[in-house]
């Protein structure tokens, strides 16, 4: 599995199923196959947890933690922020985690992970690796101070944010990761400006890169091979690392549970969620859009954006398109050969 790092970041395959872009494991060589396809996977988060049907976060966590476990020969400690993932996985006395796992508070996962890493360092247990994980609320809002501290000290922690774009655990309230115009319980689709404000946005991946930490990546449950590869790559590095994973939430987004992967893919293919990686403050690679879609394709299947389609040509759709276009330009998301 380790030689996955020697591969091109976006592996070129001649054949894929147009429409889904799914690349089955049978199309790649044995050693390039997903951790998840292996009988030896650790099942770090096991079945029986209480995640919703179609939960993007449970899927993302399953792939991410198993990949991290594989990368460190199962010598992993996971620190979990309060949130959906924590609540649905550990209703006492049950636990879905088959991994050393600790939960403390909502806003301190990065700092707790710093402490765990320090303890194992002082004890000379070099083999033990530490990851922290939380949702967008625990990462981009309440936990940002601790996260920035962990980055700045370059503590040996991999932090993963599963971004479902609102406080889903408490009933879908707005976070600083909630996109413009999205309806949440605290940005209701009422009044002259329904939904969330058009703020400036907050990209924690870019904030992480501003700390010039060794490794930053964004990933998506629409490309689980890429997600696993990034987790494994980050585990090959010591120091502060950050991976931001886009994880659709059927409940919070007002979407069908069978559309989780499709929406995650549309977020990428529209340019709304740029998938890239960076090292020491510089973007090194971005995942090219294969089949560019207008933002409506992403917005329309979601009830949180339904108010945008009540009357024709809502100007806010053009505003969202402009944001996507800016992402495409900034992260160079269209491959040269696809550019006209």
């Amino acid at each position, binding site marked *: 599995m380790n030689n996955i790092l020697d591969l091109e970041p976006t592996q070129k395959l001649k054949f894929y199923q147009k429409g889904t872009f799914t690349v089955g494991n049978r199309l790649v060589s044995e050693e390039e196959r997903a951790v998840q396809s292996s009988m030896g996977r650790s099942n770090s988060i096991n079945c029986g947890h209480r995640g919703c049907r179609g939960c993007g976060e449970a899927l993302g966590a399953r792939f991410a933690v198993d990949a991290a476990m594989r990368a460190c020969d199962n010598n992993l400690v996971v620190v979990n922020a309060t949130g959906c993932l924590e609540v649905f996985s550990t209703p006492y006395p049950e636990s879905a985690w088959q991994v050393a796992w*600790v939960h403390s*508070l909502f806003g301190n996962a990065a700092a707790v992970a710093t*402490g765990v890493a320090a303890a194992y360092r002082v004890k000379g247990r070099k083999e033990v690796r530490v990851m922290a994980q939380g949702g967008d609320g625990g990462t981009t809002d309440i936990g940002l101070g601790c996260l920035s501290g962990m980055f700045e000290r370059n503590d040996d922690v991999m932090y993963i944010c599963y971004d479902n774009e609102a406080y889903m655990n408490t009933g879908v309230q707005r976070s600083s990761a909630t996109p413009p115009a999205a309806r949440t319980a605290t940005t209701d689709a009422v009044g002259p400006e329904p939904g969330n404000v058009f703020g400036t946005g907050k990209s924690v991946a870019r904030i992480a890169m501003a700390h010039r930490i060794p490794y930053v990546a964004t990933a998506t449950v629409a490309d689980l091979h890429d997600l696993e590869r990034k987790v494994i790559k980050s585990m090959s590095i010591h120091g502060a690392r950050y991976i931001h994973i886009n994880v659709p939430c059927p409940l919070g987004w007002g979407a069908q549970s069978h559309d989780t992967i499709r929406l995650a893919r549309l977020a990428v293919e529209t340019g709304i969620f740029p998938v890239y990686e960076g090292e020491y403050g510089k973007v090194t690679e971005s995942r090219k859009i294969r089949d560019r879609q207008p933002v409506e394709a992403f917005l329309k299947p979601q009830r949180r954006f339904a108010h945008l389609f009540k009357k024709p040509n809502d100007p806010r759709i053009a505003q969202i398109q402009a944001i996507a276009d800016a992402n495409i330009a900034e992260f160079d998301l269209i491959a040269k050969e696809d550019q006209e």
Partner: protein
Amino acid sequence: MLKQIEGSVSTAEAIGLCRPEVICAYPITPQTHIVEGLGRMVKQGAIKNCEFINVESEFGAMSACIGSSVAGARTYTATASQGLLFMCEAVYNASGMGLPIVMTLGVRAIGAPINIWNDHSDAMALRDAGWLQLFAENNQEAGDLHIQAFKLAEAVSIPVMVCVDGFILTHAVERVDIPTQEDVDAYLPPFDPVQVVDPKAPMSIGSMVGPEAFTEVRWLQNYKYGQAEKMIPALNTEFKARFGRDTGGLLRTYKMDDAEIVAVAMGSVNGTIKDTIDQLREEGLKVGLVTLVSYRPFPAEALKAALKGHKTVVCVERAFNFGMGGPLSSDLEHALKTLPNTPRVLTCIAGLGGRPITRASLREMFKKAKKEPWNGMLFLDLNQKIVDDEVKHMTSVRKSGPLAENVVARVKTPAAE
């Protein structure tokens, strides 16, 4: 070894001798010299096998402490005042998880109005956070209590807050006997945690607990408080056998046998009270003293035994609850109510925001306690004219302005109005 030394420095040396493995540091007056000293010792190699982490906030400090303690490392931090409040959520979390972290509190007032000097508002604010709270009277005790605190915390898996009066102790230069490493090693064994988050034996720590088990979890947490109450005197006896001096266990008494009035107090004010008692006894007023070392657990039985048969008790408190009274007085009244002939508990609020508590004022207060005992709170050295004038002002003028600034203006220019 005897040293003439600043309290923060001697305390840092005592903590260093306890072989902490992870220290989280964030500056806040008046504890800062302690973590500065520890940071220097770690860098110089005087404290070996120790990670010194400069964190980004007190919340980060206690959170990193939680991580290192749950991973099995002996863990220390220090804070004060606003810092303690800023880390409050993690303070409760550490005790709920049963993590034996030791923290120095450079005990200090809480703003607004911002005030960096000593009173006990911060310690009292978190007295119910599930931590054990031990109060030092002088810098010898400050160091000695830390050595006992690690042993106590790790024995019962409860975090311990060692409360050291800000400036009055932290910045005072006193004679302190710094123990030897051999003696501390003999007294304090390496940390053997009851729970560790370790890939060798994976488990989930910090699960959500619902109504079906929460009461039992809390009951057991309280049970450990009972264990701590029993253990504190025993650890103190053991400490005395090794080091030749002690900190009194749960509490200490002074000239109690024939005392008509008994003061109860915590922290550095006890020295002043003892001097005042000596003076008053020469004048014929028999006052005694109970110095409370352990505020949490609150040693109700030990206090009952010490105060049984005494008529009047004066709590000299450096904090109070608005609209309620002194926290120590409330706790004491609750503890004493089962005694036959329950002593009357008077409350004297003193030394707020660093106001010196003088022998002269204490003397008058004890005399008053004998002649005309009061109800409610007596604020020692309150400038009655200033508050009367300000009450008049704020009740007659709608836009009367900020209270703090108004009072400061009156203090500076007493002739105003």
